């Protein structure tokens, strides 16, 4: 799958079936003006796989994650989710940018959880969760509310439905944010450093919810600094540095026996 980039070591344990891959990135480049942030990312994520992406800050992890749901437009390369080319349509050898509502439709199948939660402050926890199902998928409000309450229960906050985000702790807000993303019944969940903005004692409750999700077979790409979580929950681990994938493989292998010196240098500085 990744003959172009020799640095990529088996992200998918030899899975050859393309139908098995939910996310396929092919030589993904991203530049902001003259600054090249992603320098050719190739990877595949299978259905049900939990892939953790680690690396020093500024290595392009978050940018890559934001490319997956087209919050950032790629400057080169291709990216497919669920067999669909993200953000573009290919016709007679030419690429056409998708229209706003077409990109929106693609995104609705991909949940995203942000470092800073980004809950809607003018809506309650429940309001945050039912907003997209009601507005985008036209789910009847009563049905969405019922489902929203189930989701709140699932993330351990059954009694916080009518609370506004500012009345919740960081960990609670992040769990509501996860429930909000799940409400769209996505086939893929993206986590952008979901615990980095939390007080240390609140990290566990968010990781618990994510662990639960993984156990239920959700396909997840998690940008994180939680090496313990990556080792325990991750099916695969990708180490990125300077806009490229330096090393990848099973979390235990990469974390215990890093092959590349940049991986070694990074891991030696990380506590876990």
């Amino acid at each position, binding site marked *: 799958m990744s003959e172009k980039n020799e640095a990529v070591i088996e992200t998918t344990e030899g899975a050859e079936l393309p139908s098995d891959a939910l996310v396929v990135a092919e030589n993904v480049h991203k530049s902001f003006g003259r600054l090249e942030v992603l320098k050719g990312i190739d990877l595949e994520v299978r259905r049900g796989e939990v892939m953790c992406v680690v690396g020093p800050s500024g290595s392009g992890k978050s940018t890559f994650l934001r490319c997956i749901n087209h919050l950032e437009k790629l400057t080169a390369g291709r990216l497919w989710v669920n067999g669909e080319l993200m953000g573009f349509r290919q016709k007679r050898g030419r690429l056409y940018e998708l229209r706003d509502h077409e990109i929106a439709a693609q995104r609705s199948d991909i949940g995203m959880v942000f470092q800073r939660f980004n*809950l809607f402050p003018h809506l309650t926890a429940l309001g945050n969760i039912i907003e997209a199902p009601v*507005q985008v998928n036209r789910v009847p409000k009563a049905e969405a509310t019922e489902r929203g309450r189930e989701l709140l229960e699932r993330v351990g906050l059954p009694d916080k439905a009518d609370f506004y985000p*500012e009345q919740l*702790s960081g960990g609670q807000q992040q769990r509501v944010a996860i429930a909000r993303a799940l409400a769209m019944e996505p086939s893929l969940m993206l986590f952008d450093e979901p615990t980095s903005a939390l007080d240390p004692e609140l990290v566990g409750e968010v990781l618990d919810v994510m662990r639960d999700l993984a156990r239920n077979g959700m396909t997840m790409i998690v940008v994180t600094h939680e090496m313990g979580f990556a080792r325990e929950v991750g099916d695969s681990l990708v180490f990125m540095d300077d806009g490229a994938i330096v090393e990848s493989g099973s979390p235990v292998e990469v974390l215990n026996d890093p092959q590349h010196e940049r991986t070694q240098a990074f891991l030696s500085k990380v506590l876990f």
Partner: protein
Amino acid sequence: MKDRSVSTPTEPAEGPAPDNPQPSRPAEPIAAVPVRYPERWVAAGVVLVLAAMFVHMLFTNDAFNWPFMWENMFSEPVLRGVGVTLSATVLSMIIGILLGILLAVMRLSGNPVLVTVSWLYTWFFRGVPRLVLAVLFGNLAILYSTIHIGLPFDNYWMPLLGLEGDARFFEIDVRTVLSGYMAGLLALSLSEGAYMAEIIRAGLQSVNKGQTEAAQALGMSRGKILRRITLPQAMRVVIPPTGNETIAMLKDTALLAYVPVTIELFYQLQAIGTSTYQIFPMLVAACLWYLAATSVLMVGQYFIERRFNPEQRGARIRTVGGAH
């Protein structure tokens, strides 16, 4: 999972402080003599005397002619004028706000033509005094006596294509449509649109970019994001200055007198004043009417601001909850 969340350690920080570990000793309350400020009392005395002089003048100067004012303040044409003032305020604010949203969205659209047009519009209407605008719009019929609705520049391209006649479908007589009231309303709303555009733009820009991204990630379209996520949050920033704009607009409806709009409040009061040679009482009546109307608006503004301020809403709930 559920057990965990119950014991989530978030509350202690907000709860009552733990018992002081140090043993408490009896404390003697401070009973010190407070600092006196005699100069403030002197100033207050002077102000009181001046105020008394002013009130005394109100009651003794015959030019006020209070009975005359009282009698005419509620005469039928004046009351109708109050109605015109209120309707002009409401209508011009509604049009102004809608126009402001449109201009703000144009300004933030990124399309160079839309950005420039929006900027030029704001530049013009903020730069020309409202009084001048009111008179200008009152005389607009000089520019156009009739308005034709049809395809633009038909007198140029129709002959080029070898076509005869014109591409005008119907016409409007400006003098019938653009009554004084309509002209004045147009002047006020177009001017208000420029101010509201700036206020709404500031409001939209105050909303964190993460909000738009979160909504995008959920699959919401641009229009939905604006309506459901960005605008409601911008409201908190937009509402207070809009309240001020409404109050200012109510006062600026007096400018309609110069369009002229003869049914307008200030025009009516002045008309009574000049025809009866009781100019001053009628000017005082104008002050009282505008003061009464703006006072009602200020009370309304207080409640609307409280309603749209999530911090205060949160504070109320927190107080009920007992924490903080």
